[in-house]
Structures are given as C-alpha cells and as structure tokens.
C-alpha cells in the first residue's frame, strides 16, 4: 500500500478548514462574489434605476415620512386643454408608453426595506449594483498588478544581471513616488473616466509589492535541482520560468493578490468619491458615499449606512481571509 503525501494546496486547504475565522470570512467573501455574479448577469438589481419610491423614502423600520407621502400619490394627468398645442402629442405619447408597459402613474412606495435615495432608487439594490463595480475593479486591478509584478519579478529574478538592474531601477522609481500621488498623477494624465481607466491606474501603479516578493522567490528557485533538471532536458527560459518555477511560487502571487484586492477596493471607493473614478451613470460604493455625504446633512442616513456597512463587511472578511490564507500557505511566516 502506498501513501500519497499531500501537496501544498491540500495541506493549505486542510489548515484553512481547521481555522474557523478563515471559513467564516471565506463564506462572507463568497456571498459577496455571488451577489457580484448575480448582479453582473442581471438576475439581481438590474432594475436599480427604477424610481420605485418617493424621493428619500425612509427605511420601513423608521416609518414613512408624512411630508414625503404626498409625493406618493399618482400625479393626476392634466386634463386635455384646448389651448395647448402639444396636448395631442402628449396624449399620444402617454398611450404609447402605457402600451409598452411603462406605467406613468405608478403609485410610488413611501417606505422601502432600507430606504431610497434622492431619486427614489432602492438603496439595497443600488448597494448590490455598486458593490459589483467596486469588487470587479478591485479583483481585476489586483490581477493586473500581480500579473505585471510576477512577469517583472520572474524576468528580474531568473535572468539577473542587466535585466535585474533594469527592473530594480523601475522599482526604485515607482516606489519613490508615494502610491496615492502616483494614482492621482496617472488619473490627471489619462483624463478619461471609466471602469477600465481605474483598473489601469491601480494595476499599473500596484505591481511593486508583488514584484519584490516574486523576484526573491525566483532567485531562490532558479538554483534548485528541478530547474537544473529542466535545463538539462533543454527547456527554454520561458518554459523554466512559467511552467516549472511558477507553480512553486504561485502561492506568493495568490497571497499578494488577496492583499491587493482589499487595498484596491478602498482606493476605488476614494477615487470614485472624488469624481476621478467611475463615470456618471455607473454606481459604485464611492459614488454612493459621495451622494450620501450631502444627504446626511438632510438627516437621510440610510444610503451612507448601507454603502459603508457593505464595504466594511466585505473588506473585514477579505482581510481576515487574506491573513488566514497567508498563514495556511506559508506557515513559516506566522
């Protein structure tokens, strides 16, 4: 009977399974990811832009605001006026809209489970939709940053010499500029707003952390026997770097990515809040906080609470999971 000794990933998974905090935070993260997938496929919150309630409708547990309830009454259609030259057109438009299913005289709700924003959008659906933007930006940007860091780190660590000098120079230049200043500078230069722009800004400025660690791993691994063996059978440089060595350092890349996701979600929220992030019409947690800032003075606290709580919950769970993942994959570090 032979016993197969468990590999790195199996061992790490066992350690994670034994860690209750890790499993709890992983569950929370998975729920958020599920909501992102559902929102992206349009199964959930696709109708967040419907004005389903009166402006600033309070949460149900607060009770409806009598001052706002008057707005909930369907607006009486203006009786046809013989002197209005557009009356005929308006009547035609209204029948057409009614035919297409747009109820023009919908009764708006006076309360919603977690309230409504300035335009009467459901805050819960808006938070889910906003989360989709923020989380996707965080994940994709972290992937770009880690991919760049891994590529540069691999080249630098594996080849050494001139290549190493070149990338180390890049590294020292990029780290000399504080990351937030770098992000703002690139935002100023790129001028165009959009989800892709934020991903580029964060991805292009965030590669330095992964680079340093991946480079160190490649320096350590390139002298190992399995790499010499690969060399002996005539494997090319790229093959040695990414087929032979990369699987052995991929856990470092994964841990780095989980750490970067947290930072990038926070950064996206700040950028979008300042108006350098998502364009008008796209909702993210940052743009929600921006609206909520003015709402708070009017005493409408629900949008702020919803966006802030969702973000804090996700980021807490993700940081705890990232810590647990690091401990599970690299027990020596603990």
């Amino acid at each position: 009977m032979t016993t197969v000794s468990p590999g790195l990933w199996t061992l790490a998974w066992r350690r994670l399974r034994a860690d209750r905090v890790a499993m709890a935070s992983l569950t929370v993260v998975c729920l958020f990811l599920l909501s992102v997938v559902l929102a992206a496929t349009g199964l959930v919150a696709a109708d967040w832009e419907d004005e389903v309630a009166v402006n600033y409708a309070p949460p149900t547990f607060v009770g409806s605001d009598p001052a706002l309830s008057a707005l909930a009454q369907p607006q009486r259609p203006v009786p046809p006026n013989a002197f209005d030259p557009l009356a005929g057109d308006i009547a035609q438009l209204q029948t057409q809209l009614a035919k297409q299913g747009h109820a023009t005289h919908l009764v708006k709700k006076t309360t919603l489970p977690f309230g409504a924003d300035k335009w009467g959008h459901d805050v819960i659906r808006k938070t889910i939709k906003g989360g989709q933007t923020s989380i996707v930006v965080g994940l994709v940007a972290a992937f770009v940053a880690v991919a760049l860091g891994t590529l540069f780190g691999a080249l630098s660590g594996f080849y050494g010499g001139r290549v190493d000098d070149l990338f180390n120079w890049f590294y020292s230049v990029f780290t000399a500029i504080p990351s937030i200043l770098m992000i703002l500078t690139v935002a100023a230069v790129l001028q165009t707003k959009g989800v892709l722009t934020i991903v580029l800004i964060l991805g292009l400025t965030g590669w330095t952390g992964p680079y340093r660690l991946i480079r160190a791993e490649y320096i350590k691994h390139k002298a190992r026997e399995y790499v010499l063996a690969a060399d002996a059978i005539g494997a090319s440089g790229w093959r040695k770097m990414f087929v032979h060595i990369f699987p052995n350092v991929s856990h470092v890349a994964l841990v780095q990515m989980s750490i970067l996701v947290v930072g990038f979600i926070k950064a996206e929220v700040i950028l979008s809040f300042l108006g350098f992030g998502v364009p008008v019409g796209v909702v993210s947690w940052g743009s929600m906080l921006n609206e909520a800032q003015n709402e708070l003075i009017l005493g409408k606290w629900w949008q702020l609470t919803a966006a802030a709580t969702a973000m804090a919950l996700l980021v807490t769970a993700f940081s705890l999971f990232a810590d647990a993942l690091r401990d599970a994959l690299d027990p020596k570090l603990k």
Partner: protein
Amino acid sequence: MFAYILRRLWQMLPTMAGVVVLVFVLFNWVGGDPSYLLAGKMADARAIANIRAQLGLDDPWYVQLGIFVRQIATFDFGNAWATGEPVSHIIASRLGPSLTVLVPLTVLETTIGIALALAIAFVRGSLTDRLVMVACTVGMSISILVYIIVFQYGLAYKLGLFPVQGWGEHFTENLLRYATLPILIGLAVSLAPTLRLFRSFVLDEVGQDYVRTARAKGLPERRIVWVHVLRNAAIPIITYVMANLPALLIGAFLLERFFGIPGIGREVILAVERSDFPVIKAITVYVAFATMVFNLLADLMYQAVDPRVQLT
C-alpha cells in the same frame, strides 16, 4: 560617514532621473495635448498653435526635457494654469497648513502606537490581545471617507464641538481650533494599522535571546518591555515613520479637502480636477525627491539608535 552620505546621494541620481523621465513621459506622451485644455471650448487652430508655441510643445522632445530639468533645478515651474499663481509660491504657501496637521498627527500616532503596542505585547496571546487585533481589522476596513463624513457631521455640525471647516491666519488659532478635529480623525484612522504593525515589530523582539537573559537575571517585566524591547523595536519603527513622512503629506489630502485646509494634498486634488499639469508635475517630482532623502535620513538615524549598525 561623510563618504557614505555622498555615495548614497550619488546612487540616488539614477532614481531621480527615472522619476523625472517617468513624469515627463506621462505628461508629454501618455496624456492628451494640453493646449486643447487650455484653449477652452471656443478654440480655433490659431489659438491652439499659439498655446503650443508658448508651452514649447513644438520643440523637439529633448529640448522640452531640458526645460523640465531646468524647472526642477531652479524651483521655477512658471505659473499654475488655472489660477496664474506661481507654482513655487503654491508649494511654499501650502506646506505650512499641511505640516500644522501632519506633525502633531505623526507625533501622537507614533507615541500612542508605541505605547499601545508595548502594552499589548505584555498580554500577547490573551483574549484582550485578540480582541484588540480584531477591532483593528474592523477599524481598518471602514473607509476613511466614512470616518470623516460621520465625525464631521456628528462632532462639528450636530454637536458644534469643532468648526465644520475653515482655516485662519495664525498658527496657534489653526492648530487649536481648525486642525484639532482633522488630527483626531487622522488618529482614529491611522492608529489601527500603526498598532498592528508596531505590535509585530515588538513581537519580533520579544522572542529574542536578550529578553530571556534579562528575565533570567530577574529584571521586572515592565523594565524589560519599556527599556530593552523598546530600544530594539525602535529601529524598524523609525524606518517606517521616516520613510512614510513624505507620503503622509499627500495622504492627508482627504482631511484637507473636507476641512478646507489649504495644504499640499488639497492642492493636488484641485490640480487634478483642473488638469493643472505644472502643479501636479512639480509636487510629484519634489515629493519623490523628499521620499528618497527621508529614506537616507532613516538609515542615518538607524546608526544613531543602534550602535551595532555600521554604515559603510
């Protein structure tokens, strides 16, 4: 020592050159043509050609790079595009308000962070330790925006304990009246990550042999932690604090923006909003240079704190 400083400064040159080239490339090639921005909405070809000539955009790239280097060396970046104020004057006049917030914030954050980290290290592994660490993780997860919005609304707007925003003429008035709430918020935001980091520095030292020796010769735990451990943990702490000072200058931009403090950080945000390239270029280059110099200073302070370190 002198030779060491000279050599370090010499080694900085390629990095400085890299920063200059990076900023130059970003603004001259990656970014769009600034003359369209400056010409405004009713631009005709003549006006744009005129502005291009004024900005030197028709010159070959090496002439433009040369001008940029001369601007950096002479501290003369011309006037800001949006306001016409000289860029050097912008930087000089915005530095004071920024430091009024940052110096007290850094001093408080570092001392409180060290005290708490050592106190936590006393009870490492206990329930208190774990609870404080969880509280730190949760505290770090809340966006800084939420802290600012909620505290500004609650403490300043609702309760009226502090001015909602503003800035005065006199240093003491600014420090005691306008900067207090921003400093408190900055402290609330930064203490959690600082405490986590300092705790790890302290815990690295607690397992060392000299601590066991000190215990073996019967020193009280209090003395071991506050004298022996602190002196050794001070080395990474100093590096961290020093190396982060220039970044803090920009990092406080949200505080400055919300509270109307006319500092460097707020200036960067305004410049990005207005596409005021000379201001951003100047601040980016000088902050990068400052970061390098402060890194060197951190290494020099290393030796002052730890005589074992030989800088050669």
